[in-house]
């Protein structure tokens, strides 16, 4: 089974910065990690390959430094890695991102039997890119999968959707997005770092390789724009009380009385 895994390198949340002119996040120079759910997808792909044969291709779109994420995936056991990069790709919303990733998947030879992604990323948390790639690639999709069983020429998968435990059969090729429950990955083994950093080439594809036009990708190919970034809503000005446990308990009880959750006691001290 040939599997493509789409991963994303996400910035470490506490150190994020913004490009105020373009109103996009600056990813260069910020410490980065592979999106945790994409790790789960990668681990699942490696397991499936080890049991079924075939190859695992890892694909990411991002700035040149995203190559680190691909090297990490190769060290963990991925067979090939492709970096989709170029200045035109930056500032993309999910519509433009899924367009570039789908173009890369279409170019893979052989076309994968299965495309796997994490359900969502920790940075933007949209969960859009998986289903949007499936649409562009005309693949069936199942999102939020927590069990995968390989049958003859289809998969049986399970997921939890809006309070229902669903069992579905999906014909191949297909696209699945996976959740944390799929398998407990923890930290991937470092694998063969020498292999990762010396022998294997990371393929790079840009605009021309994917036969895309500038206006289809990046900020220009995006339908949404960030109008304004702001910090979460204003703080409350409350009382902060410290002291003996009894003092704290008294304050708590008095608050309950103020809110009429407790009736006021006659002669309460």
């Amino acid at each position, binding site marked *: 089974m040939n599997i493509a895994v789409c991963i994303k390198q996400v*910035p470490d*949340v506490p150190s*994020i910065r913004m490009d105020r002119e373009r109103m996009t996040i600056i990813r260069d120079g910020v410490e980065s990690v592979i999106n945790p759910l994409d790790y789960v997808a990668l681990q699942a792909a490696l397991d499936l390959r080890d049991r079924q044969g075939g190859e695992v291709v890892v694909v990411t779109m991002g700035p040149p430094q995203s190559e680190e994420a691909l090297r990490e995936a190769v060290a963990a056991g991925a067979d090939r890695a492709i970096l989709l990069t170029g200045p035109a790709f930056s500032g993309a919303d*999910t*519509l433009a991102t899924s367009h570039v990733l789908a173009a890369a998947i279409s170019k893979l030879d052989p076309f994968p039997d299965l495309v796997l992604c994490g359900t969502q990323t*920790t*940075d*933007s*948390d*949209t*969960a*859009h*890119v998986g*289903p949007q790639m499936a*649409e562009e690639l005309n693949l*069936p*999709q*199942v*999102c*939020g999968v927590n069990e995968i069983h390989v049958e003859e020429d289809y998969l049986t998968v399970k997921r939890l*959707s*809006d*309070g*229902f*435990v*669903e*069992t*579905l*059969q*999906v*014909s191949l090729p297909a696209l699945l997005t996976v959740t944390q429950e799929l398998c407990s990955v923890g930290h991937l083994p470092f694998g063969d770092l020498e292999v990762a950093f010396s022998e294997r080439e990371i393929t790079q594809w840009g605009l021309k390789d994917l036969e895309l036009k500038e206006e289809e990708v990046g900020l220009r190919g995006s*339908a*949404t*724009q*960030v*109008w*304004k*970034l*702001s*910090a*979460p*809503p204003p*703080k*409350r000005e*409350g*009382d*902060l009380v*410290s002291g003996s*446990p009894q003092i*704290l*308990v008294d*304050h*708590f*009880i008095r*608050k*309950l009385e103020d*809110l009429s*959750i*407790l009736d006021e*006691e006659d002669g309460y001290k």
Partner: protein
Amino acid sequence: MDTSNDLKGVWVFGDYRNYFQNRVTLQLIAKARDLADKLNTKVIALALGDRVHQWAMEYVAHGVDIVLAAEHPDLKSYQVETYCSVVAPWVEAFQPQIFLAGATSFGREFFPRLAKRLHTGLSADCVALEVDTETGLLLQTTPGFGGELLAEIVTPDHRPQMATVHPGVFQERPHNSEAVGRILYPDVDVVPETRVKLIRSKRQQTRQIKLEEAPVVVVGGRGLGSREQFESLFELAELLEGEVGATRPVIGSGWTEKERLLGQTGKTVKPKLLVSIGASGAVQYTTGILGSETIVAINRDPQAPIFNMADLGLVGDANTLLPLLIEALRKRI
């Protein structure tokens, strides 16, 4: 009657599979009503299924002007591709300005695929929606970076402006059985998705937890230190006639069930009183409790961010205070 102009208004996808989805649809209808009034247009709700008349009536009673309904055996189960085959042609034919869906599991799987097919913009899991008075654009506020910042998203040139909305952020309107609306059944050509087959669907067996409706919510965080300590929150909650909620680390440690999770990836609550115990106040959690009328926080660390949003902050050890609070309340009740 020519309805084509009326249908260009604010659309809401009717998601009614269970109580929770039913509610978010009604919340969206209320918000759509506000937006439509500002834009001087109509509210249109969609109802797809094998039998949808009762839902169409319910939507009208909650403030919808027009319901677009489709009844077909293949629409009985919520299937993304099959639903797209009905809804995408409707959007192309009737050209709504705005199209909203609840950020339910289904909404978050269906809307991205639909937006892609329509080649338009989509924002995820919005916590606020407004109309910009100058441009008439829909301002879609969505949390990013785990809630560290809020982004206002606009879709300047593509239509419709699509958004999924976090359940619980808008207030539904009361049911009005006198309300008048139209229910239309446009022609549909349902193309069932044959590549994905639903083999079994079983309601998940969990105790009914109605966090969203509880007047008092007691939330425990990692600071409680153990499952046993966390369980003593149930005693406190019972004395206050409330429910128990939890932060992500608590769920991660397996101290309680996922249904109690509050915050960005969990539930949003707006109780009369929220008591937060042993939670430092990460933004992922606090986005779920912002609407609480009163917040009382207990934490050992006076610098904990939770105190910035508390009406009353008690600096103390949760495990010392918890038994004392329970005892004091027992005496009073």
